[in-house]
């Protein structure tokens, strides 16, 4: 596989395009042409793609798209181009079972196939959501550490540091990043799982400097670092700086991408191609050992039929054609301690796992409302995801349809839910009886669909 120096050389010397021309004259026409060529059509009835041929066509289309458009470096306005042979070589050489964590929580993450009965890796927690202060932060992360089926955690975003708002690019950002990682580690030790990997690096970090500085206070090479593209197919020097640093210290990366439905990626069918293409760019440009995608709607969630179908299709396309582990991400519209939220989580986990994904879960209530998250939602997600291993795509499709019928009409006006402080006993970090009963009710409903929940 091409080495990182070659990626940087191409970022410095590749063909020059003004950004708007790359968007409108390179990516968009080529994407539309390729979607037409491979006859990829949206199925508005099913939340799960049921066609292996379509999944493979999407992968072939994505490979062609990568070859045609390359990846855009927004600092140099130059395109990092790849040949088909280089892309295929990268797919061949990508890691297949990267190992993360320490001690009792050290484990290999493997790529899964659609309909597989292999249990998914469960990367769970806040998913970029924000908590108001360090007290809430520590309790949340301890709660995540106490989720039995969690394989790695995603820590929240710290909104304040010593009573001051964390401002990106200021010294407060660096201080908050240092604090976030120190507290994250301490909280996982309190949970008796000090080896559990923190996989979202430091979500409080916006700049490369803050992420790198913060990491020196507790991130480990075995944690796996999250580095993302900008939509669509763009990468900045800040992100490549992070990659350079992580590779030099011997760490591993998750490459993340979040194409937007209705944006440059277009509709559900072309978005599946874009999402799949990111997998290849993740391997080469971000040097990833794992790829995570979260196709999103404009409102910040991805639990409707269109988005689930699209993500299901790209997840299958990737997992049928690449051995590198891939993660499915569900962002919900409804807030915590609502029936709708649990139904969205279940729907996302069942479809994602049946489509061959490992899972990341967080992002309750579109990760929008401060302190509107708790350890209950990710715990529920891990239980459903594990129970969904072995569920076929056809079965998952039926279950998701039943769940969508219950919540899809509420997506445009979802319930905000209850903040962590009001849904849990603050000392023991245990959920109130009302929340326990609600989870029990939705689990019973899922058992009725045939899901083998404990």
């Amino acid at each position: 596989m091409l080495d990182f120096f070659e990626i940087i050389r191409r970022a410095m010397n590749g063909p020059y395009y003004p950004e708007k021309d790359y968007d409108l004259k390179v990516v968009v026409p080529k994407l539309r042409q390729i979607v037409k060529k491979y006859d990829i059509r949206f199925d508005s009835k099913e939340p799960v793609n049921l066609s292996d041929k379509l999944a493979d066509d999407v992968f072939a289309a994505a490979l062609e798209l990568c070859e045609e458009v390359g990846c855009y470096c927004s600092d140099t306005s130059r395109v990092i181009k790849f040949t088909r042979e280089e892309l295929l070589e990268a797919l061949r050489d990508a890691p297949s079972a990267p190992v993360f964590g320490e001690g009792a929580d050290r484990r290999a993450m493997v790529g899964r196939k659609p309909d597989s009965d292999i249990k998914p890796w469960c990367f769970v927690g806040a998913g970029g959501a924000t908590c108001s202060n360090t007290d809430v932060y520590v309790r949340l992360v301890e709660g995540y550490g106490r989720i039995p089926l969690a394989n790695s955690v995603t820590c929240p975003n710290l909104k304040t540091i010593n009573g001051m708002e964390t401002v990106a690019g200021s010294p407060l950002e660096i201080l908050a990043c240092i604090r976030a990682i120190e507290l994250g580690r301490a909280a996982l030790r309190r949970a008796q799982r000090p080896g559990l990997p923190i996989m979202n690096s430091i979500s409080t970090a916006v700049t490369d400097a803050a992420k790198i500085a913060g990491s020196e206070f507790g991130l480990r090479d075995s944690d796996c670092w999250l580095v993302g593209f900008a939509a669509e197919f763009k990468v900045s020097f800040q992100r490549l700086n992070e990659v350079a640093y992580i590779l030099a210290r011997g760490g591993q990366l998750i490459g993340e991408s979040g194409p937007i439905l209705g944006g440059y990626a277009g509709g559900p069918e072309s978005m599946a191609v874009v999402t799949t293409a990111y997998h290849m760019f993740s391997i080469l440009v971000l040097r990833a050992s794992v790829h995570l995608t979260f196709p999103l709607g404009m409102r910040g969630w991805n639990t409707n039929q269109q988005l689930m179908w699209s993500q299901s299709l790209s997840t299958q396309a990737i997992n049928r054609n690449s051995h590198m582990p891939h993660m499915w991400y569900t962002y919900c519209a409804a807030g915590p301690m609502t029936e709708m939220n649990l139904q969205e989580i279940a729907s996302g986990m069942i479809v994602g796992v049946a489509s061959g994904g490992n899972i990341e879960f967080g992002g309750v209530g579109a990760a929008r409302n401060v302190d509107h998250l708790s350890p209950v939602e990710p715990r529920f997600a891990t239980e459903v995801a594990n129970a969904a291993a072995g569920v076929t795509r056809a079965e998952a499709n039926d279950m998701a349809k039943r769940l969508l019928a219950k919540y899809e009409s509420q997506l445009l006006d979802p319930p905000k839910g209850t903040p962590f402080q009001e849904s849990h006993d603050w000392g023991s970090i245990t959920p109130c009886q009302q929340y326990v009963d609600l989870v029990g009710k939705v689990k019973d409903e899922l058992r009725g669909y045939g899901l083998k929940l404990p």
Partner: protein
Amino acid sequence: MSTDKKTLLNELQQAVIEGDGERAKVATQKCLDAGIAPLEAVEFGLRDGLKIVGDRFEKLELFLPDLMLAAEAGNQVMSVLEPIITAGGGESKSAGTVVIGTAKGDIHTIGKNILAMLLKLSGFQVYDLGADVPATTFLEEARKHKADVIAISALMTSTMPGQREVVRLLNDVHERESYEVLVGGAPVTQNWATEIGADGYSETASGGVALALKLVAKK
């Protein structure tokens, strides 16, 4: 309006909807040659076409690139019409002037781009300051363009304080009353907008346009 005129205006409208700038330019000239008043071409050809594009975007029948191409086609149409309108002592009606950008530290642009395009399609003069924009730049550009609205997007919780900073700066220089401040972005909420003293928040880009129209009308 005669059938011939209607046909010509429809052709102009269609070219705008399809984002075909060259065709839109030719269609505009044909409208003028047929005696259609420039303002009539703006109203029934350009603006109606842009409205259809906006509506179809809302229904996910068209996407961001289509908005951008339609806006480009609109610019081509105006390059023909504006000099004639100005020479005739008239002026093409603008819904208002907006400076828009993403908050300091934030490099995400899609949400901001969509709102900028929809504002353009709705007749606003839009100055897009791009990503990672310091509060001082928002202020300087708003002054320079005599803006009605300052629109600030933030996709990350850690960059939302950049929105507050713009409002603070406007207060500090005693120019808060000169501009309507709109905030948006995935993590932004009405509570946040209220807390920082912004004039409006919308969850969606189309809602942002409606809000901008309402606030400018109120000024």
